[in-house]
């Protein structure tokens, strides 16, 4: 019916969905821990579990379905208020969640891997009286007594294409109780006109179960929209219940007095269409059956309409797209932007007004297209934040510390790739906070801090960057200890004069760890440099500020996107460079005369304000001399204004960022390359890094002259 690949695809979809559901479940559980009486959260957890179970069974993940069912049963009791939410329950459910997640990653054959160590204590949690009333009461309603249901299941013709295997549904029904299914094959066409992907078969099923009608409905919960489904209660072999979802032909006939219940009872046992039977046995005329059918049809139509309305209301406002497609879309937009730059250049060159207006239109559209495409890739960082809640909870428990994680700005949006790559470094930083920074409760009380430690995560936009802060109220960094350690490790010499900020950034150096004891959480000395490298790869930066005894703040500054930025194109001699426009504040002129009058100091007077500048021509060792009047591009670097001297400013440039590749991967001060309208390559400057390099060189020079000074004084 379906080929393997499409079955695999559906399984993959299930996995993805299940991951999301598990993530949601985790959030719900963690919130539930704080407010155990919140019925909405209990319902949310239950629904997550139910969906994992339900679709698990449908796509052949029996192990998961069986395991989840047990957990779901317990949560059903909680939902009915027959079991309290306790810490044990949350703990066990969290480990059950992890177990399900493990099962998802395992090959299906291993799915029977028992989760007994979780389920046994979980079952023990169930209060005795709750258990006695029966766990079968899974979805409320008429449970307890054995009820017989007649189910008419008419799958839509395209049900296979939607990845649903009706036989699995029938199997699931069998698990509810004694069940007889009768397949109708009359609408199957001749072999040569069969479409193998179309479902021609439909079923009538008799099911006796004590689980209640909702349990039966739940089996079909995912196919309701794609099939005609009628579930009826039949009490005691043929007496109809009163609450019918959809009126049956026979029933309508009874209501109209054409047949008696006795007739029906004898007919029902034979499992065929009542109308046909009745006509055959001449109990009613075909016309009357037709009338009844019409009424049935009428009811069905009304119902269908209602369903459609419901369906329309439920139509999701978002769709699921494979991330690979998004990536290739971004690549295409990138190429488009490059071609557009060529067009703009060409039109400016030709100076044809018609061409110019077209080029402008294309430029506008490309810009919009680019922004839209980029915004598609933006995701709120909140999903990452909620993952850390669990991390903090588990770790602090393990280490015997009390720590609360608070978050802020979870709705801040970041490029998908950045978020993905941010996870590991963030985990590392938070682990560090918990393990090293925050003291055990007794020490905290001794120094007059609240016993419960605090880790605060915040995210916010700042220009083309997102700032993520990890703030703890722990012991803070010990600048002297770091300094001593760095000297011991040979990272600096005892004579080096470093600012506090530079001392803190030493902990980012490879092989640096100040923790005296190595725990299994952190402190193997492989940590912070890995974090730094990861952040560097994202073209971000790390800032550390700390106050001893009060706490530490680690700030991650990350670019909004990795693919396309607005840039300012400048040139020095024949070389072209791009500065990220987001950091550029203004451009001012620098006459050679003014520069000469400054006694070699690289300082410019911008409306009375002193702005240091860096001569890129010198920095990059570019031959030749600059023009009479050069340009200083003034950029904001970490709250300071720094100028970059270039020959001239060309203009704005939509910059598609290309990496320079492995060979140039450690080049400092250059963050990538882009392709210009004429097909040549321009380099993108890493403003922050260039400033750091210049500062460092300056400092080295100063330290050198100071040493010289002290030597001279010694001579005297």
């Amino acid at each position, binding site marked *: 019916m379906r080929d393997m690949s499409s079955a695999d695809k559906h399984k993959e979809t299930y996995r993805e969905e299940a991951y999301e559901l598990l993530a949601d479940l985790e959030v719900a559980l963690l919130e539930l821990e704080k407010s155990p009486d919140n019925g909405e959260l209990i319902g949310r957890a239950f629904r997550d579990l139910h969906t994992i179970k339900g679709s698990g069974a449908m796509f052949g993940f029996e192990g998961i379905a069986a395991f989840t069912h047990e957990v779901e049963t317990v949560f059903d009791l909680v939902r009915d208020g027959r079991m309290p939410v306790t810490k044990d329950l949350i703990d066990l459910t969290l480990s059950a969640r992890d177990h399900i997640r493990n099962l998802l990653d395992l090959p299906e054959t291993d799915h029977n891997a028992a989760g007994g160590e979780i389920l046994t204590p979980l079952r023990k949690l169930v209060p005795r009286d709750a258990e006695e009333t029966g766990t079968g009461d899974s979805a409320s309603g008429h449970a307890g007594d054995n009820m017989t249901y007649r189910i008419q299941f008419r799958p839509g013709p395209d049900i296979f294409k939607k990845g649903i295997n009706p036989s699995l549904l029938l199997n699931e029904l069998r698990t509810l109780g004694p069940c007889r299914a009768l397949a109708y094959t009359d609408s199957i066409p001749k072999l040569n006109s069969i479409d193998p992907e179309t479902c021609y078969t439909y079923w009538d099923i008799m099911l006796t179960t004590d689980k209640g009608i909702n349990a039966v409905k739940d089996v079909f919960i995912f196919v309701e929209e794609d099939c005609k489904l009628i579930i009826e209660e039949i009490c005691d072999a043929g007496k109809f219940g009163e609450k019918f979802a959809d009126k049956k032909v026979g029933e309508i006939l009874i209501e109209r007095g054409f047949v008696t219940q006795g007739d029906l009872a004898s007919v029902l046992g034979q499992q065929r269409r009542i109308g046909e039977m009745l006509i055959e046995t001449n109990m009613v005329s075909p016309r009357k059956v037709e009338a009844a059918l019409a009424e049935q049809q009428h009811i069905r139509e009304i119902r269908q309409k209602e369903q459609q309305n419901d369906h329309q209301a439920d139509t999701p406002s978002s769709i699921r797209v494979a991330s690979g497609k998004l990536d290739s879309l971004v690549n295409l937009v990138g190429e488009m932007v490059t071609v557009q730059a060529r067009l703009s250049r060409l039109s400016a060159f030709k100076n044809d007004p018609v061409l110019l207006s077209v080029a402008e239109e294309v430029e506008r559209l490309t810009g919009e297209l680019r922004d839209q495409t980029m915004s598609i890739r933006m995701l709120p960082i909140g999903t990452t934040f909620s993952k850390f809640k669990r991390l903090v909870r588990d770790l602090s428990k393990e280490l015997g510390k009390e720590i609360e994680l608070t978050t802020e700005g979870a709705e801040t949006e970041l490029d998908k790739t950045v978020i993905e790559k941010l996870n590991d470094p963030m985990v590392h930083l938070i682990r560090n906070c918990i393990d090293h920074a925050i003291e055990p409760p007794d020490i905290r009380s001794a120094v007059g801090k609240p016993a419960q430690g605090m880790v605060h995560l915040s995210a916010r936009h700042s220009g083309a960057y997102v700032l993520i802060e990890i703030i703890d109220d722990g012991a803070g960094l010990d600048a002297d200890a770091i300094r001593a350690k760095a000297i011991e490790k040979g990272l600096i010499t005892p004579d080096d004069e470093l600012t506090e900020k*530079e001392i803190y950034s030493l902990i980012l150096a490879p092989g640096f760890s100040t923790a005296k004891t190595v725990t299994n959480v952190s402190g193997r000395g492989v940590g912070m440099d890995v974090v730094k490298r990861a952040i560097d790869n994202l073209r971000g930066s790390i800032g550390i500020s700390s106050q001893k005894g009060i706490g530490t703040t680690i700030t991650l500054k990350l670019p909004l996107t990795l693919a396309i930025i607005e840039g300012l194109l400048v040139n020095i001699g024949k070389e072209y460079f791009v500065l990220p426009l987001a950091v550029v504040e203004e451009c001012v002129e620098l006459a050679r005369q003014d520069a000469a009058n400054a006694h070699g100091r690289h300082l410019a007077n911008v409306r009375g304000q002193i702005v240091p500048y860096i001569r890129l021509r010198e920095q990059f*060792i570019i031959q030749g001399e600059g023009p009479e009047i050069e340009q200083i591009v003034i950029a904001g670097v970490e709250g300071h204004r720094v100028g970059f001297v270039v020959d001239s400013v060309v203009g704005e440039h939509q910059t598609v960022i290309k990496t320079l*590749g*492995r*060979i*140039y991967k450690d*080049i400092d*001060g250059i963050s990538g390359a882009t392709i210009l309208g004429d097909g040549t390559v321009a380099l993108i400057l890493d403003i922050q890094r260039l400033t*750091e390099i210049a500062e460092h060189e300056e400092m080295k020079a100063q330290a050198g002259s100071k040493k010289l000074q002290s030597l001279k004084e010694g001579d005297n």
Partner: protein
Amino acid sequence: MSVAEILETTQYLTFKLEDEVFALDIAKVREVLEYTTVTKVPRTPDFMCGVINLRGGVVPVVNMRLKFGMPDAEKTVNTCIIIVEVNLDGETTVLGALADSVQEVMDLEPDRIEPAPKIGTRLRTDFIKGMGKHDNKFIMILDIDKVFSADEMAMVQDTGASALI
């Protein structure tokens, strides 16, 4: 690297630097481009010409003359960039090799290839896979993976990176 590895007849692309003829395994060569504008990356050694735009991708170019310690030459109409795929730390990387001119593609049987002499080639012997003979001329068959190995390129990084702190 030795001649022992060359067991079957292989096609080679030959190119010239000054008067000397070098050869590359054709399987490593992706294409040959005319010389185009190369953008120099600041603070890199001279033999690293810079980067070019190869149909939207950024590809580094190495000046083979300077790499092999020969004097640089004026660009002519024959100057070309051979785009090669090299294996750098287990990753395939695309690189451009700047050469004076490209000659031809030729077959060389294993018995016409001799091991490179330890001295007298003016080149590091590990760069050379073997010496081929063709029309009474010697051809130096390059081991391009070695020439562009990570260690060789690390020089770029050392000179380029002015380490902070």
